[in-house]
Structure formats: structure tokens, C-alpha cells
């Protein structure tokens, strides 16, 4: 039976303790369309998709495929119905090879023996056909996130899924990888596969989707044809009020030097070469300096070297007049706050409560402890203030376990904690990665406000838009070195792109800005 809608999710309601993540949501996916799902962080997009994939059982509502009511109790049921999902946080087994990960759970066996050869042929054919380049024999822990994602996609294709769910697939990709992914998705749609695509990035949604369904705080807002709408109205729909897409800021008034980096080098973890080589720059009070560059050009290591997570192998770092090249992380923290790149690895103790996480940097201060005993009341009060002031949303307030919070609110909690520390230097690494426009607007305005209060802000970002709109000065990193200093007011995105790709440089090694 051919119906127009291949999947219908009708009046889905899903509750978690203290929060209704999906409240009577209806979503209809047409055959062969790319259907975008848009909503702020915590709007319930992942939850809705997890319901479709059988990871959660809804309290109310039903799912139909081709008009027939189906029950999806677990991901195996979903697979049997041809539904596949690439999760926001990949679900691969690190120590297995790519091939093993792809066939895991759908192995072809003969007399109980794995038929790997056939599986390999099939995977190779798929990889060829869609241009999804992967190294089948590499271990997952050794490959890039971009490749991990291709592995996830191949996993779905290997299972002959015809309904493909992509939960924020672009959040972890480089601009080039994003373009490739878009092409792949269009290719799938052309072949009649139906795609559900979650993203916060309005330009991606405009570029690739046929229709958009918008959720807000667990509720259904509406579904629109992409060609009848634009970015501004989509973001207004999603946030529920007019949103400022452009950063609003006055010219910087730089003051004294706060951070002075001279000839800094940091060793790479795996390779012999320096990941950061002989880098020098300064950040002054009242300015936002942005390190731009394609992922993997030493930005992460540079930040590790500055914050003390990794030892510097050469050069000197001076913060507020003090040489901190060999200081401990704790000592550096006296004058520096750090919004880390990886919020799950460094930013949060996921099994701690929100309030415990909010004092992660401050629990030693007399305000929160006396003779080694934690002042519970003071912690609670402080957490409540931050939650209120920074609008951190969660199911159970201060006692919510951090793991159960949505990614955006986890990030907001980190921002609240770090900004509220009131340190002269803020190091912010991809602070808006994976966040919705509402949250991005908020975080950008926070960083600008901190700048205007006289803080020095060092921003590391992979997003060209963010780099161009937020920074007062741009330093471009390429292969561990700073290859140029640009003024966002006079430079163009194209020129920035040339520096990032290593096609252009204004500084020679050793005589940098």
C-alpha cells in the first residue's frame, strides 16, 4: 500500500521525571522527502526520534508506517521496519574495527560462523556508491569524527534502512564534511529514502530540507514548506519571539595586555611533531580575539597548553603579569576561566547533580566550604541563582543529574559557571557548538557583555559566521602555527577561508603577530 506519508507519529507524549519532553507531538514524514526537525536545545527532538527508534516508549500516541499502526519496543523492531538512526552522540564500539561496527548486530552467519567476506563486499559496494570513504580495518578510536559518522551512516545502509534519522549530524563536522553530508542526503532522497534531519543550523535546513517541523519546549509549533519560509521566520517560530541573528556590539576598546604568549610550542599526543609550533600573540582587556582555523590545526592543543591540561614544550605564557608557563591548572585558574571544547569530557561530571557541577571550580572557596566541610545551603543558593540568571533548564533544578540534561542546557550550565567566576581572561572553545539560535544569541551577548566589562576573551571557533561576527581580531591557525592576523571589519569570508586552508599567510614561522 502506497501512502503519501511513510511514517506518521501521532499525538506522541513522552515524560521524564519533572519534564514533559514531548507533549502531544504529531510528525508526518513523506516518502522521499528530507524533513527537518527544528527546535531549541531541550525542545524534545532527540526524545521524539528516540521514540521512533524504539529507545523510549511514549506514554501516549501512536506510530504508523504506511498507514498501519506499529509498535516499536526496541531498536530491533525499528530496524525490522527499516528505520535507522545516527545518534547525536555516536554509538560505536571504540576498540572494534569499522567493519565490525557496521555489521555488529546484523551479522550474516553460516553454521554459526561469521561471513565477513560477504559483509565486506556489501559494505565496500555501499561505500563506493555513496562516496562514503571509510577505512574498514581501522579501529574506531583511531578515526576522525567525520569518518565515525560515515560509519554510522553505512551502518544504516547496511541494514537496508529506508527511513533515516540524523540527529544533529553536522554539529561535529567541518564545513567541507557538512557539504559532503548534504550531498549524500540529497542522493538518498532521490533514491526514495525518507530522511528526518535534526539541526540547529538554519542555513543547513534551508539548503537541504523539503519541509520543516518546529518544536518548542516539548510542544508542536507547526510544519512549513522550506521554500515558503526564511531563516528569520524559522528562528522566530522556534524561539517564540523575534531573534537577533546578528551580534550587536560596539567597537572594542582594548586596554592592558592580559594574556601574553611568546613562542609557545605544545607536543602532539600521538605524533612526534609539535601540534602547536612557536606561537605568539596577545589578548588585551576589553577585546575578543578569535582563533580561527579548520579543526585539527592545533587549536585544541593550544588551549590545552594555555590552560595547563597539557605541558608546554617551549615558550612562555604570561597571564596578568605572572609567568604561568609551568603553573598548575589550579594556579592558572586564579585568573582564567575556561569553557572547554568537550563538555562531556572536561566540562561536566555527568553523574553529579547540576549544583555539584556548578561549584566544580569554586567548591574550595570559603564561600562554599568551612574547614573542609561543604556548605550545602550556600551551594544550593548559588546554584539556584545561576540557574535563574542564566536560564538553565532542567527537570529537577539544582538536583538534576547533569547526564539527563539536554546538550544546550549542559553548555549553558558550563557558561554560567565559567562566566560567573569573574576572571580577567575567558578562554571559550567552541562555546556554541551544537546549540540553537536562541542559545547562541544568548551566549554571544554574554561574551560581548564580558568584554565590555573589561575582560579579555580568547575565543576558539570553527564557525566562520561566529568568527566574523563576534571577534575584534582574528588569528588564523594552520598546521600548528598562526599564519595571519585579520581584522573582521575589513576582511571577507573568502579571504579568511584562504588563510584557513593554508593557501595564504602573512607571517613567517618565527615572526608572528
Amino acid at each position: 500500500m502506497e501512502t503519501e506519508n511513510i511514517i506518521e507519529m501521532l499525538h506522541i507524549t513522552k515524560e521524564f521525571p519533572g519534564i514533559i519532553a514531548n507533549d502531544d507531538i504529531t510528525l508526518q514524514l513523506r516518502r522521499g522527502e528530507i524533513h527537518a526537525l527544528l527546535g531549541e536545545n531541550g525542545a524534545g527532538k532527540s526524545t521524539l526520534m528516540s521514540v521512533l527508534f524504539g529507545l523510549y516508549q511514549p506514554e501516549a500516541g501512536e506510530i504508523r508506517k504506511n498507514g498501519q499502526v506499529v509498535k516499536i519496543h526496541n531498536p530491533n523492531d525499528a530496524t525490522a521496519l527499516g528505520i535507522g538512526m545516527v545518534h547525536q552522540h555516536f554509538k560505536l564500539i571504540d576498540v572494534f574495527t569499522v567493519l565490525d561496527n557496521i555489521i555488529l548486530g546484523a551479522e550474516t552467519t553460516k553454521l554459526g560462523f561469521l561471513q565477513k567476506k560477504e559483509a565486506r563486499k556489501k559494505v565496500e559496494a555501499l561505500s563506493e556508491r555513496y562516496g562514503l570513504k571509510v577505512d574498514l580495518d581501522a579501529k574506531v578510536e583511531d578515526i576522525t569524527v567525520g569518518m565515525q559518522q560515515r560509519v554510522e551512516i553505512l551502518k544504516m545502509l547496511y541494514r537496508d534502512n529506508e527511513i533515516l534519522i540524523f540527529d544533529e549530524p553536522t554539529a561535529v563536522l567541518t564545513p567541507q564534511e557538512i557539504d559532503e553530508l548534504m550531498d549524500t542526503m540529497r542522493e538518498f532522497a532521490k533514491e526514495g529514502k525518507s530522511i528526518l534531519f535534526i539541526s540547529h543550523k538554519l542555513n543547513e535546513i534551508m539548503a537541504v530540507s523539503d519541509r520543516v517541523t518546529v518544536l518548542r519546549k516539548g510542544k508542536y509549533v507547526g510544519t512549513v514548506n522550506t521554500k515558503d519560509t526564511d531563516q528569520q521566520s524559522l528562528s522566530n517560530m522556534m524561539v517564540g519571539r523575534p531573534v537577533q541573528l546578528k551580534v550587536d556590539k560596539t567597537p572594542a576598546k582594548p586596554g592592558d595586555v592580559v594574556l601574553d604568549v611568546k613562542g609557545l610550542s605544545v607536543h602532539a599526543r600521538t605524533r612526534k611533531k609539535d601540534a602547536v609550533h612557536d606561537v605568539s600573540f596577545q589578548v588585551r582587556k576589553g577585546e575578543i580575539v578569535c582563533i580561527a582555523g579548520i579543526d585539527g590545526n592545533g587549536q585544541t592543543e593550544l588551549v590545552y597548553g594555555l590552560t595547563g591540561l597539557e605541558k608546554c614544550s617551549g615558550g612562555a605564557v604570561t597571564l596578568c603579569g605572572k609567568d604561568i608557563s609551568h603553573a598548575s591548572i589550579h594556579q592558572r585558574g586564579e585568573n582564567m576561566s575556561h569553557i572547554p571544547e568537550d563538555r562531556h569530557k572536561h566540562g561536566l561530571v555527568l553523574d553529579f547533580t547540576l549544583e555539584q557541577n556548578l561549584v566544580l571550580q569554586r567548591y574550595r572557596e570559603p564561600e562554599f566550604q568551612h574547614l573542609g566541610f561543604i556548605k550545602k545551603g550556600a551551594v544550593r543558593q548559588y546554584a539556584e541563582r545561576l540557574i535563574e540568571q542564566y536560564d538553565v533548564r532542567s527537570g529537577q533544578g539544582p538536583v538534576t543529574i547533569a547526564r539527563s540534561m539536554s546538550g544546550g542546557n549542559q553548555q549553558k550550565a558550563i557558561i554560567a559557571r565559567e562566566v560567573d567566576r569573574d576572571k580577567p581572561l575567558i578562554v571559550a572553545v567552541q562555546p556554541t557548538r551544537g546549540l540553537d539560535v536562541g542559545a547562541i544569541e544568548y551566549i554571544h551577548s554574554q561574551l560581548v557583555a564580558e568584554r565590555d566589562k573589561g575582560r579579555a576573551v580568547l575565543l576558539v571557533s570553527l564557525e566562520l559566521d561566529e568568527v566574523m561576527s563576534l571577534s575584534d581580531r582574528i588569528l588564523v591557525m594552520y598546521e600548528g602555527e598562526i599564519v595571519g592576523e585579520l581584522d573582521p571589519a575589513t576582511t571577507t569570508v573568502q579571504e579568511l577561508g584562504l588563510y584557513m586552508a593554508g593557501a595564504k599567510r602573512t607571517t613567517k614561522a618565527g615572526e608572528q603577530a
Partner: protein
Amino acid sequence: MKQKISGLYQKDGTKSVLAALISIIIGLAVGSLIILAVGVANPTLGLTGAWDGIRLVFVGILSTGRDAAGALTFGFNPTSVGNMLFRATPLILTGLSVAVAFKTGLFNIGAPGQYLMGTAATLIIALSIPSDVVPTWLIWWLAFLGGALAGALWGCIPGLVKAFLNINEVLACIMTNWIAANLVTWVFDGSNYRNLVENTKSGYIYKTSFNGVETAKLGLDKLFPNSQVNGGILVAIVIAILMYVLMTKTTLGYELKACGSNRHAARYAGIRDKRNIVLSMAIAGALSGAAAALYYLSGNTEFFWSTYQSLPATGFNGIPVALLAASNPIAVIFTGCFMSMLDIVGLQLTNLTAYNEYITDVIIATIVYLSAFTLVIKTFLSGRKKRKAQAARAQAVPEEAPKPDAAEGKGGDGV
């Protein structure tokens, strides 16, 4: 009121307690089934014999023997309770040792080795300081602290290996266990602490009552006459409370838990992760060492020094004690007592029926398996709650069942 109860039900702690109780009840039930099976199969025991056995399994701690007619009698038996407390003392401490390590993300399977090192240090200090010169209470404290310190140092080894070489602590613990077993045997083999006076026994070290360095009874012998109980149980309870306070109320506990839960985030926050891993293992080791100290300082226990072929069960039994208690230090007091109660039950079975104490080993084994499943049981408990809510809602919903047509309308173009 009803809301209060359901609120209590939702609390994690309540679920842990329920999960533990379920494990215990299933364990006792399995023991009873075996008793029944053996009884039915064996004509001399029969159903009445089995019924006696089953009653002892459940309330053996309250058994007061048999009356003139040969029927089991029950009532408060101070001797059994006292002995239970005495045997619980080291179990509570090794349970704490495992529990504290668990809370900080480490699996301390090294408790037996730490216990042995604690034993050796305690006995050497207690027996070598001349009690006619130094007051015995001072020797007692030195021996106790010495035992704890030896355990701590032994616990440090897997901690250091984990912190600096990133080698799993379980591996290092297993190795240090056997090193301890051989080391201790070797030290005592050549020592003059061997009890050669009472030559009916061989292979034992002097009891500490030999030179008067034994744990004070603190009046507990009056409360529980004819039992082995002494002040050690009070020391163990105080330590458990201190551990609870340490883990939940202090910045040190916060740091230890942060390191255990996410070492990277802890480092990011300027917490010295390596130091804390070592410290966690040192605390765990100190607790195991203290367990040994309290056991062997009691004055009526003897150490069989030739241990190179076996590790002390008290060390391993800390694991089920901690698991049953969901690593809560206060709960460890109770689960420790429960495990030692099973010991007493075993004795009663041997003394009063044709069954023997091995039945209780089966019960303990069942509970050990189940306690590893307490998490599963907990999840099951939460699941059941949810399903109930779902069922309730399903009943309320039918009239407003989803209307596909309405959805069509909503799903149309434009907003």
C-alpha cells in the same frame, strides 16, 4: 500522605534498600528450598527436620536451643547477637573499604591483601612492644593504627600503578594480594611470635590476650554475656559514620568522587587526579587494615600464619557487603551485620539440626550473585512504577484517542 509514600518510593535510596531486601529474601528462599529438598530426600530429616532448618535460616539468630521435648525454642539470645556483632566488625570495615573505593570509581579487590598486611603489622606491634613497660592501651592504639597504616601503604600500590602507569587497579590488586600472602607467611615463618607453648596447635601466632593487649569490652560483655563481642564493633560503627561524613559532606569526598566519576573533568577543575586515586586506594587499604587489626586485637582470635595458599575470606566478603549496601557507608553497618548473622545461622544449623553450615554458604553465594544484580533490580523497580503510570493513563485516554484526520490538518502547509 500517599504522595509522601510515593515520593519516598521514588528516592534512589529507597530503591537501593528495596533491591537489597529482595536479594536477601531470594537468597534465604533458595537456602530454604535446598533445606526442603534435602529434608524430603532424607528420611531421618523429613518434613519436620526441614521445617526446623528453614526456621533457623530465617530466625536462627533468635534461636535459644531446644526444649525438653526436643522442639526448637526461640527468644532473644544475647550470646548469638554478641557473636554476630563480633564477627560483623571486620566485615563492616572491609565492606567500607570496597564501598569507599567504589564511590570513587575504583574496584578494590585488594582488600584481602590489605587485610593480611594489616594483620601482620598489628600482631607484630602488639606482640613486640613489652607490655610491662608500655601501658597496654597505648600498645593497642599503636597496633591498631599500625595495622591501618600497613593496609593503607599496601592499598597505595595499586593506586600508584593506576595513577601513573594507567594499569587497571583490579590487576594490580590481584597481584598485590598474592604478594601479601607470601610476604606475611615468610615474615612469620622466621619470627618468634609463633605459638609454640600450646603445642596442641601448630601454625598459629600468639593471641593478643597473651600479653594483655586486647580490645576493651566496654561493658558489651555484660550486655551480651558469653559472647566474644568487644569494643571493636563500636569503633567500626564510628568509622562507618566518619566515612559517610567524609564522602557526602566534605570537599575531600567531593574531590574523590569527582575523580572517580570523571577524571578528565576533575583535572580540568584543578583537582589533582593522580593524588586522589592514590588517596582513595590508601583510604580503602587503611579500612581493610583496620578490619584485620580489630579482629586480631580482640584477644580470642588466632592467626594461622601459613597463608600463602589462600587469601582471607573476610577481605573478599567485603565485596558483597558493599554491593548489598549500594556502597552507602551507613548501610554497610547493617549489611555487615547481616552477613555475620548468616555465619551464626550456620553454627545453629550445625549445632541443632542434622544440616550443616554449608547451607549458609549457598545463601551467601546466592546473595552475592544477586547483589551484583541490585542495579538490575533497581531498574526493574523504576520500570514497574512507570508501567503502572502508563496503564493508569491508558485507561483514562480512550475517549480522546488520536484522530488521524486532525493530524493531517495540522501537518499541512504553513503555520
